[in-house]
C-alpha cells in the first residue's frame, strides 16, 4: 500500500510538473483505468461535488452550504488523518489557492469523517471553477483529487454561487 502511495505521489507530481512529457513520461506503460466518478448534486441548502470510488475505499466530497455565513468544506474519510493530532494545522488547497484552518472530526453512520470549513468568497468561487485539483492537508497527511472534469466543476461552482448569493463565477 505504501509503495503504491509513494508512486502515486510521484505520478501526480510528474503529471503536474513535467512540461516535456516526451522526456519525462507521465504515463505508466499500461492502460489507465478510472478509480471512480464525480457526482454533482444540490438540494436542502447544500451543493455537493462527490468522488465515488468504483471499488469502495477513499472518498472525498466538496460541499457548499447555505447559512448565515455560507461555507465551503472538504470532507473525507478520517483514516488518512488518523495519526494527525487534533490541533495540527490544516489547509484546503483549491488549485494554487491555499486556505488555512483547522481539521474537524466527526462520527457518522457511514464511518468517521475529517473535514475543514471556510467561508465562501467570490475569489474562492472563481478558483473552484478554474482549479482542476483539490486537496486537504493536515499535519503530514493529505487527501487529493485527480483532475476534476470541467463540466462538473462548472456545475458545482454555479450551484455554490447561487447558494451563497453571489453571481455565477
Amino acid at each position, binding site marked *: 500500500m505504501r509503495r503504491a502511495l509513494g*508512486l502515486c505521489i*510521484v505520478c501526480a*507530481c510528474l503529471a503536474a510538473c*513535467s512540461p516535456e512529457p516526451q522526456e519525462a513520461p507521465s504515463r505508466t506503460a499500461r492502460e489507465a483505468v*478510472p478509480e471512480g466518478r464525480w457526482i454533482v448534486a444540490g438540494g436542502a441548502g447544500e451543493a455537493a461535488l462527490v468522488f465515488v470510488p468504483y471499488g469502495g475505499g477513499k472518498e472525498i466530497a466538496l460541499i457548499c452550504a447555505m447559512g448565515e455565513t455560507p461555507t465551503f468544506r472538504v470532507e473525507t474519510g478520517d483514516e488518512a488523518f*488518523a495519526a494527525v493530532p487534533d490541533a495540527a494545522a490544516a489547509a484546503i488547497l483549491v488549485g494554487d489557492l491555499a486556505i488555512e484552518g483547522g481539521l474537524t472530526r466527526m462520527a457518522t453512520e457511514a464511518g468517521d469523517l475529517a473535514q475543514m470549513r471556510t467561508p465562501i468568497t467570490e475569489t474562492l468561487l472563481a478558483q473552484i471553477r478554474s482549479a482542476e485539483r483539490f486537496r486537504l492537508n493536515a499535519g503530514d497527511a493529505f487527501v487529493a*483529487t485527480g483532475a476534476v472534469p470541467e463540466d462538473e466543476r462548472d456545475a458545482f461552482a454555479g450551484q455554490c454561487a447561487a447558494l451563497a448569493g453571489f453571481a455565477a463565477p
Partner: protein
Amino acid sequence: MADGTMDLEGFRAEARRWLEAHCPPAMRTPMPEDEVVWGGRNPTFKNPHAKEWLEAMASRGWTAPRWPKEYGGGGLSAQEDLVLQSELRRIKARPPLFSFGLWMFGPALLEYGDEAQKKQHLPKIVRGEIRWCQGYSEPGAGSDLAALQTKCEDKGDHYLVNGQKIWTSYANEADWMFCLVRTDFTVKHEGISFILFDMRSEGVETRPIKLISGSSPFCETFLTDVKVPKDNLVGRLGGGWDIAKRLLQYERQSISAGGFGGAGGLTLVDLAQAYAPMRDGRMVDGDLRGRIAEQLMADRAFSLTVQRAAEMAKANQGVGHMASVFKVAAASQNQRKTELMLETMGAKALGWKGAGFKPEELKVTRDWLRAKGNSIEGGTTEVNLNVVAKRVLGLRDHQ
C-alpha cells in the same frame, strides 16, 4: 410530495429497506481480491452470494444508477445517486460489479452511440453479461496515442482490421473490445475511428503479458483480417479521437492520499514488530534496525520533498525536470524498502502460495517482485538519468 427534500428522504427510506432485504450479509464484508466480480459471458462467482447481489442490483439498474431506465440503468437523479451511495456505504456493501463497460465505454456510448448501439450494449453492461476491454495503446503508440497504426479498411459491407494492441487489460477474459483504429493515414487525429467488435471474431488473438510478480491483467492483442460490421462504428468515421479524449477524461478520475500513519497496510515497523527477534522492545539485529531507521528517515525526507515540490508547482514555480529526479529516487527507494521488508520477515517472505503463509505475507513477497518494475515503468531509470544529466545538471551528450 412537492418538497424535493421529502422526496429524497422517501427515496432514502425505500433504498434502505430494499438494501436491507436484498444485500446478503456475506456481501457486507471486506472484499478479497479474488472475489471481485467482473461479469461476462462466462462469469466467475467465487462467493455464491456475489451472483445474487449482482442480479439484485442489476434488476434495479443500480449497477449504473444514473443511466436512463430504457437502457437498463437506474434512472436516478444525482441527489438520489448520492443517497444510494451513502446507503451502500452505511451497510458496507461490496461493489456488485467491476466493469470497464460501466466505467468507461458505457458513458461514452451514451454520449456518442446511436440508438441501436445503446439498446444493444448498455443493458448487457448493466447486468454484467458482457465484459469489455479497451484497445488503445499500441507498441508504437502509448504516450502519443494518436500515432496509432492499426489499419481499418472499408470493404463495402464491412470493415477489415489489421494491427496490434498492447497493455489491453484483461483482453484474454473480455467478450468485446472498444477499439481505436486508423481509417485514414493522410491525417493524424482526424484519421482515427472508434469501433466495437466481438473478441470471438475470427482473427482476434490475445496473449497475456506475464509479470514477475505472478499476477498481471495485461495482454497483447493481435488483429489479423478481423471483419467488423459497419454498424459497429461509434460516432462518425474519423471522429474517434473525440471519443478517445472523452474516455481519457474518465481515466483521469481519481484521488490519492498519503502521509505518515495515514493509510494502513504493512509498514516496515509493523513487520519488524511482528517478525524480527526483539529484546527489551528493541530489535536484536542492530544492523537491520539501523537500516530500517535509515529507510524510514529517507521515506519521510522524500515525501516532504515531493510535497514541497508540489506546492512550488502550484505557486507556479515549476519544478520541471526535477520530476525525473523524483522518479529515479522513488523507484530505488521503493526497491530498497521491499528488500528490507523481505529481510525483516526472514523465511516467512519465501512464500508463493499455500496455507503455510498468510495473505499479507504473500503480498509482501509479490510486492518485492513487483517493485522490480518500478525502475522500468513510467520512464526507465536510465532515461530519467539522461534527463537529469542533460536538463538538470547541464551535462553535454557524449561526443
